[in-house]
């Protein structure tokens, strides 16, 4: 096949680079959601540890 003109080839080239970028962004977004869940878990555990400490010190 002959080489595509640059205006038509540009769409495909942009498409390939955008697909790569979107996949990386999706991955980062999923990881961010996981980290957020971990942060909530840690907050909950810190609250539990704090309340235990108060129970012990309160007698």
């Amino acid at each position, binding site marked *: *096949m002959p*080489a*595509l003109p*640059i205006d038509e*080839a*540009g769409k*495909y*080239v942009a*498409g*390939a*680079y955008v*697909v*790569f970028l979107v*996949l*990386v962004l999706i*991955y980062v977004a999923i*990881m961010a959601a*996981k*980290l957020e869940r*971990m942060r909530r*878990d*840690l907050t909950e*555990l810190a609250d*539990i*540890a704090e309340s*235990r400490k108060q129970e012990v010190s309160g007698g």
Partner: protein
Amino acid sequence: MTSLKMPSLRVMAFATVAVLGAAFAMVFFYAPNDADQGFIQKIFYVHVPIAICALIGFVVAAFHSIRHLRTGDPIHDVRSYVSIHMGVIFGTAALLTGSIWARAAWGKWWVWEEPTLVSFLIVYLLYATYYPLRYSIEDRERQARYASVFAITAGAFVPLNFMAVRLAESLVHPRVFATADGGLPPEMLLTFFVSLAGMALLFVTLMRFELSAKMTSAQVSRLRRALDSEAPAASASRIAPAVPAEQRI
């Protein structure tokens, strides 16, 4: 004995952005257009490094699996899992970018007669079965052992598959490297290697990011269990999670 210390995740992230940014700038402002394919050949600089990183990721997973089976240390199993995970993600990107390139260059999204494409798809689908295999086993130790055996077997298949493809007669897919009539001109070759370095850095950075997240998740679960074991019976059910977070490591 001195040990090699890996740079921090932050340093690696900045290095990845810098090298990938430089690579993409070189692709569009430094590397010449291909005489045969024209501007569409620019996809080569993203597609090929991604595919190489995916395949190397599978081989790295096999290496960690061998270490896991030899030492029994679960950290090697986690590293193997993360390598395969990243390999599958990069494999997805390689298939998608390759398909776009095929549509532009050959007029078809996929060519079933082409051994390079089909063999990569076979390797990709093989690794896609890793997840159902792994999570169909409930016992954590058996799960890790079976996953390691799978990773070693499939990892050995990757170089064999690569050699078979090189020996096979290509119909449409170009053989850019190691061809008798030369290869890429120096500007294209340099751009390609910078792109490859950028993708490799991205692969390693994301891998370390995921490993770090998995380790933190495991520590959170450990902490939860420790608090759970100390808890009075009434509050135990509130603390215990339905599914332990580290079960997916």
